[in-house]
């Protein structure tokens, strides 16, 4: 009997391995393979010589980067843009959710949600195509409108100060709907009797928001902000790549766009991989810390 049981378990385990096999093979090749490929960061890599034929130069690529002008600016831009997006991306949806929660008309609420949520599903290629047109200094609708107010055309995407503003504004445009719905769901799950108790204590509307709604949202706010910390080096490649131009590199070139230009356009594989390795290692630390914090604070587990 015992033997039969063991045998049966053995059989079922085989099925499990077979089910996992295709995914495992792909992950080994296309996820672990590139991790091994990070060795390029320590090579003077030439595609013709391959991984095994290229010369090992230790930290040469990193030294080269260290002395490269503009690298620190890239790092600064990355952090700055990511942090601005993080803060705005936190405050805006919370505000939206609180305001939407006050709306009684279901039709109005639905309509606003439906509209605000739509850009989330469009790619940055599409959104950039739209933005480039409406922000164009010659004939774009925004500048046409400014013209009627006798304001000179503004070159939004070619001006380093305006460009960052556009990044943040369009980030809100695309992302705000998603988080708003998450926060709204959190508000809806707050125990209704808490509001009644607050009303009995004589709390007005604002006080209810402050003492009941916001504390009720706190777990999800903490969770989302902690998880967002792990993304601090992802300032938004898709968005910036599709909007930027050399005039605004000084304020908007980030690690990912930098890697693309160095690696894919200038073919300096070793140097680009060194930047990539730096980014992966810092991200690893940040993500581990953020997951650990999320687990400690909110008992959040990914599985």
């Amino acid at each position: 009997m015992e033997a039969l049981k063991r045998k049966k378990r053995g059989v079922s385990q085989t099925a499990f391995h077979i089910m996992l096999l295709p995914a495992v093979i792909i992950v080994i090749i296309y996820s672990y393979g590139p991790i091994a490929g990070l060795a390029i960061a320590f090579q003077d890599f030439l595609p013709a010589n391959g991984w095994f034929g290229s010369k090992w130069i230790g930290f040469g690529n990193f030294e080269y980067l260290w002395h490269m002008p503009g690298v620190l600016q890239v790092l600064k831009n990355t952090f700055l843009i990511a942090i601005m997006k993080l803060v705005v991306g936190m405050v805006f949806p919370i505000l939206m959710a609180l305001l939407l929660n006050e709306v009684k008309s279901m039709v109005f609420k639905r309509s606003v949600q439906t509209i605000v949520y739509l850009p989330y599903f469009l790619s940055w290629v599409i959104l950039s195509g739209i933005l480039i047109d409406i922000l164009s200094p010659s004939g774009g609708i925004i500048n046409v409108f400014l013209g009627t107010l006798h304001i000179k055309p503004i070159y939004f995407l070619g001006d380093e100060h305006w460009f960052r503003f556009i990044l943040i504004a369009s980030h809100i445009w695309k992302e705000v709907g998603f988080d708003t719905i998450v926060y709204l769901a959190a508000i809806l799950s707050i125990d209704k009797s808490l509001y009644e108790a607050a009303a009995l204590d004589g709390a007005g509307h604002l006080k209810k928001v402050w003492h009941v709604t916001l504390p009720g949202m706190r777990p999800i706010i903490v969770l989302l902000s902690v998880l967002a910390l792990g993304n601090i080096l992802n300032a938004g490649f898709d968005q910036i790549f599709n909007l930027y131009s050399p005039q605004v590199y000084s304020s908007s070139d980030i690690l990912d766009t930098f890697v693309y230009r160095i690696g894919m356009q200038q073919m300096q594989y070793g140097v680009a991989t060194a930047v990539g390795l730096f980014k992966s290692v810092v991200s690893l630390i940040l993500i581990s810390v953020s997951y650990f914090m999320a687990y400690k604070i909110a008992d959040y587990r990914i599985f």
Partner: protein
Amino acid sequence: MIERRSFGRVSFLALNYIVLAVFALTCLFPILHMLAMSFSSNSAVTAGWVTIWPRGFNLSSYQYILDNPAFKSAFLVSVERVVLGVAISMLLTILAAYPLSKSNSRFRYRTAYSWFFVVTMIFNGGLIPTFMMVKQTGLMDSIWALIIPSAVNVFNIILMLNFFRTLPHELDESAMIDGAGNWRTLWSIYLPISKPSIATILLFSVILHWNSWFDGLIYMNSPSHYPLQTYLQTVIVSKSLDSMSTSDLSVLNSISDRTVMAAQLFVSILPILCIYPFLQRYFVQGLTLGSVKG
């Protein structure tokens, strides 16, 4: 006192409706503007007359893109990658999620496998090594380069396995007692009751494939193999940016192209608009799926 408060309340509510409506319309305006431009005449667009209503209504820009073989072929490549990519990705996701949803006593290597997958979520090789790997495995310039390297989405696997875990144990056990093996249990018992969560993951997977543009840009050598988003990236975004980098602003406007560009953007949005009602319905479900804890 009571009257004053209710007056404040009423004015707040009025203001609230206005603020929300203005914000929503601001979000919608660029898309409507694009739609209006695509149906307008070039001269009306150039003159800046078009806001959210077409001026000089005509369909010539749609006619133009329908006659444009590059646009059509890019559209078909996108359809192909969505169909193949989503099918393969769903298959891999479900097959991997099933064993991983078992308890440690049922599947001894569960923890090891889980870590094997999760590591790739927190650490990756980055752009250049991944690119080299795709090149090494001979996928360059083939549609498989857009499908295979991204076929295993660990996040989706986690969503799926968390859903499987909410299913009662008895289902699994009674199937075993009736002599059904794991394949049979997965196929005839798990899948039919997992339809909502499969639909959620499927929809998100469709969107992901439809919207991907970067892999097409770096893995495809010939523009005729570009999927739609990559095609648009090169003809609309890069082109405008290149011309923007020239100091002479008057060179910038290839204005006659603006209606055609608007039409191309709108056609590429269309499939997403078609599945948008389903996306909304399943979205909340997706959220709760993600929040189920083991």
